[in-house]
């Protein structure tokens, strides 16, 4: 009999306690923020510096050593080089990263001697066609002279994230965000 009453008492006090907790939440600041229109600066700038987002390649500093292609466990990086038989010159004719297959593990960034390939804080890669997510950092038909580590880096290198953002716009050219 006593168990009957103290079970009632316990459930009453526990429910009251629960109601007190939920009521106290009504006076607290909600932790969610309205994205994308009620945040002060775009999310890409607020992410930490080490954020491993979509990959970006500054081709002018790339030596064409294909270290990144070898270390990538999934094989989503393709570096095509051409060797001109007579003049013994080597050119980088293609640098493609399949951002859809990439798992953003960062092994390629660690393997790169000159830091040409790097993560950016870009992440908005939503697109309707996976083919668009293949980011080609060396346009077709152009040939880039591989960078010699001994020479000093060329001036005016692209800031981190700008190249990736440009390429991502190609992912959804027809929507409003694309135009932004």
């Amino acid at each position, binding site marked *: 009999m006593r168990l009957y009453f103290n079970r009632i008492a316990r459930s009453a006090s526990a429910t*009251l306690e629960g109601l007190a907790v939920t009521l106290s*939440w009504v006076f*607290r600041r909600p932790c*969610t923020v309205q994205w994308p229109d009620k945040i002060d600066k775009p999310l890409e700038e607020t992410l930490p510096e080490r954020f491993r987002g979509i990959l970006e390649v500054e081709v002018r500093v790339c030596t064409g050593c294909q270290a990144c292609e070898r270390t990538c466990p999934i094989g989503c990086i393709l570096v095509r080089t051409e060797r001109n038989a007579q003049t013994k010159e080597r050119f980088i004719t293609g640098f493609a990263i399949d951002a859809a297959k990439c798992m953003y593990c960062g092994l390629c960034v660690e393997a790169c001697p000159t830091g040409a390939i790097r993560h950016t804080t870009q992440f908005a890669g939503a697109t309707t066609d996976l083919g668009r997510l293949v980011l080609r950092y060396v346009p077709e038909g152009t040939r880039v002279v591989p960078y010699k580590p001994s020479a000093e880096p060329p001036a005016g290198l692209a800031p981190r994230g700008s190249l990736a953002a440009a390429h991502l716009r190609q992912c959804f050219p027809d929507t409003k965000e694309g135009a932004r």
Partner: protein
Amino acid sequence: MWELVRTVAGQGPVPWYYGAAAALLSAGVLLGFASAFAGLASFVERRIAARMMSRVGPNRVGPQGLFQFMADGIKLITKEDLFPEGHDPILFRIAPYFVFAGMLGTFVALPFSARLIAADLNVGVLYVVAITSLVVVGIILGGWSSNSKWALFGGLRSAAQIVSYEIPVGMAILCVVLLTGGLSTQSIIAAQGGMPWNWFACHSPFAAMAFVVYLIAALAEGNRTPFDLPEAESELVAGYCTEYSGFRFVVFFFAEWANLWIMSAIATVCFLGGWRIPLVSVAETYAHGYWVALGCLVFAGKTLALVFVVIQVRWTLPRLRLDQMMAVCWKYLIPIAFVAVLGTMTWMVLLPWDSALGKALRGVVFLATLGLLGHLARRTVATYRADAAHYSRMAGQSLWYAPWRLP
């Protein structure tokens, strides 16, 4: 509504079409109110629930998300009307309308103010208790005819739940009927005083018990947590309305949110003194239009307060298991309801309504409930203050965010 007909048609026999027109008019008004309330209640519940979970809630459609329920309604109406394979053609289609009829039927006897009532039936409360059981028929039919195991479980669970919780609801209302001597909702309200300690909830400790029993049982009637077993998302996918889509789904959920108002309205009528305005007698309220309007506000205020409590309970407590839910009803609620009825009877005999000791004890019960609310407020402030300092140090901004301030 009948007085309206009288004023228009004057004395003498009234042709039948006057009555029909008045009935259609009041049905339209009630349906409009029910749908408006159901829509707004669903939106307000999602906002309150969001705020309790430190999120924002829907605020995209219309100013601060006010038209969210219209968007939901239109979306559901335009959705394809699916029929599960092997469903029962007739029962599957008419099931939601049982629930809808059961829900809308109760609005007839629920007052909004002194003269604003669809039909002041002299069997008011009995009619209300009877018609709410029509909802069960709809749910069971819906569950059985969808030819899906989850819906069947949901339907049968609700059969067990609502039918067995009719008894505590009936017993609790019996206490109130004892105190008023009549079944009509207006007479129940008239029998209660304006000031809080004259309400039936504070009439005696037994009436207070009856009020608590009624609240818990009403939660079960409306399939609200902790008794929302019939559509337990995490166990039965969506319970009895798993296979429903499109407009029929709207009707099921329309009934659930309109039920919020019905539960709280009956509680306000029976226990919290309906539209009685403090220090104003019943005759005066009937006499003047402005008292009627104020009465309407008072009634709505009390009902919305109860609706807030029901919503808060939903987002605080977990769900009961089927056998525990039955145990709560048969082992706890019904015995307490019996004790409440016996207690009220002896209380009425020993301490009649207007005896000095009766009034004094009513004050004591009222102070007890105030003490309870004070304890709740103190615990809330303590919970808030426990986190305020740490949060501001961690997040750099103060934890205080006024409830009325919209993000």
